[in-house]
């Protein structure tokens, strides 16, 4: 899975591309986030538009990332999850904690 970071003001946007499944993506995401937190970049927006497949390992990755950022005094939010991802987040009740947005502008201003 590819992770391409870019910034907009105080927010770092991570464009994810590929699958977030067992053995793929979860570790890289964790490493990237750890690094960003070290650099003091605490506002993170994960762009999931190009993430097609996400499994329990992927969900685990999102949860872990969210908790890490939160513990570091920051915020992590999600942008444009696919329909499947959205459904999964809904059923698992994670939508009450993980904020999702359809529009990048609105997402950025929410931080």
């Amino acid at each position, binding site marked *: 899975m590819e992770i391409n970071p870019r910034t907009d003001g105080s927010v770092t946007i991570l464009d994810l591309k590929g699958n977030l499944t067992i053995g793929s993506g979860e570790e890289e995401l964790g490493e990237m986030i750890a690094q960003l937190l070290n650099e003091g970049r605490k506002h993170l927006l994960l762009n999931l538009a190009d993430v097609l497949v996400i499994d329990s390992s992927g969900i685990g990755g999102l949860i872990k990332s969210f908790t890490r950022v939160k513990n570091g005094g920051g915020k992590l939010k999600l942008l444009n999850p696919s329909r499947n991802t959205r459904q999964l987040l809904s059923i698992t009740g*994670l939508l009450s904690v993980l904020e999702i947005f359809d529009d990048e502008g609105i997402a950025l201003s929410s931080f």
Partner: protein
Amino acid sequence: MLQGIQHRATQNMQKPALLKVVDHFGVKRIVPLEKPIFTIGRRPESDLQLLSSRVSRDHGAIIYEEGTYYLVDKGSTRGILLNGQRVTRSELHHQDQIGVGGDKDCQIEFLEETVSAIFESSQDLNLSQLDSTTGTSAKDELRRLARYVEVQQAFKFSLTPDDVLVLIVDAAIEIANADRGCLMLKNEAGQLEFKVARDSKRKLLSRADFQMSRTVVQDAFNENRSVVVTDCLEENQSMRQSALDLNLRNIVCVPLRHFQMNEKTMGATETIKTETIGVLYVDSRQSQGAFSKSTLTLLGSLAFEASKSLESVRLMHEEQEKKRLEREFATAREVQIELLPTTFVQPAHFEVAAYSIPCRFVGGDFYDLLTLEDGRAAIVLGDVSGKGISAALLASMAQGVIHAQFNSGLSLPEVLTSLNRVLVQKSDDNRFITLFCALIDVDRTLSYVNAGHNPPILVRANGGTELLETGSMLLGAFDFAEYQAQETKLEPGDVLVIFSDGVTEAVNASDQMFGNQRLEELVKQNEGLSAKEIKDRIEQEVLAFTRGLPQGDDITLVALKMKSLVP
């Protein structure tokens, strides 16, 4: 020890006979027939294994019946020849020539083992010729032959790997009339490793004691050929020098080979690989002249048998290990089956039926039915993320925690909160449980919490279908998660089906999913039946849907039906 074995062998009463075999690789062997049924074929389990595509896996056999040996064809593709004629079952006589698979490359001669017969056969091994050139007597040669046959028999008894190694070295020393010998085997890194060494007095020698000609050993191993160094023979100047340095006069080093058949498809091209797995080395300081041809042949045969023996021992250990693991898995499966029963003591106010089929030996799904002190029934179905053993372990723990917490009198939300905390603390970051948990009161009030689980289907007797969701979070994600129960009233005839996503995500040959829609329809169609019948129907439908495809996920289903009012 070997004398004891010999004694046992003679008590056997089978008329002694043997086969003189020259196989496709030119290896000459003498194989005694000491079983009533002696199999010949390509399979490794054959008493005489012949590696050739013209030989069937189970080609034929030599059968001993009432004092006579018979050659039998076991339905081989290319047949068995006796003195050039194809036979299916025929008596064997001394010096009969047996052809297997019509193959001229492999020659087998059947010999009855009388003293004169042995002498005649050993003519072929050039014994008489050697009398003058090597100074050994025919008697010595015969003794060697007999010793070799003895060793053959000893191999057949189950010895520990170390016993086998010692036996091989001792036999080699005797056959070669050497001072000492050693056996080296290739280790996992591909290097030759010293295994055992003996002297001619059967004393075990340590590695440090055993200085040998390294060049001889390396050549035999690397070039996969026997290396012989004697007084009279100049193999190679450098080799002789290293031998002389150690005061050695005669050396024989024979490679141990492992043959492997690679069968690609049934009967199609088969390639045979040989791999050198070690060396058998003997040397002596006495001048005894050149090694006789028969000695070298016998050493070759010994090496062949030794390789086979070592391979069997290795395979046996692998097999034992595999069986041990299988037993452990089976035991784990039994434990899980106990935890997830298919029959229940039926509560008073509703019927319940359930089944769970793990994807692997054990699975990450669990369910439970508890009756609390106040008469309420608790039903739970959970799905641990992942599959197999790790998920199963967590599933068992969760089931236990739920059971304990209910029995402590905690409320439904409290039980879930408690389990969630345990999970967040105890499991690593990627272990979650989605769960549906409900309490059914005697007055048919249903209170439930759905923690991130695919919503159960409630089909009402009066028509109408509901999906039971509460929007609570799955367990194990965040320790601050809160759980709230919702309530509804159930009526007689209402059917509630709780299931894991293994049901709805089951896939057929066209890659379509079973899906929620299909499951709902199925429940609606069968709502008039008993809980068990509904469960059975769904189970059969899912099975038919996936029709022989391997199961992709753990499948679990619990069906409840509220009982009709007692008139």
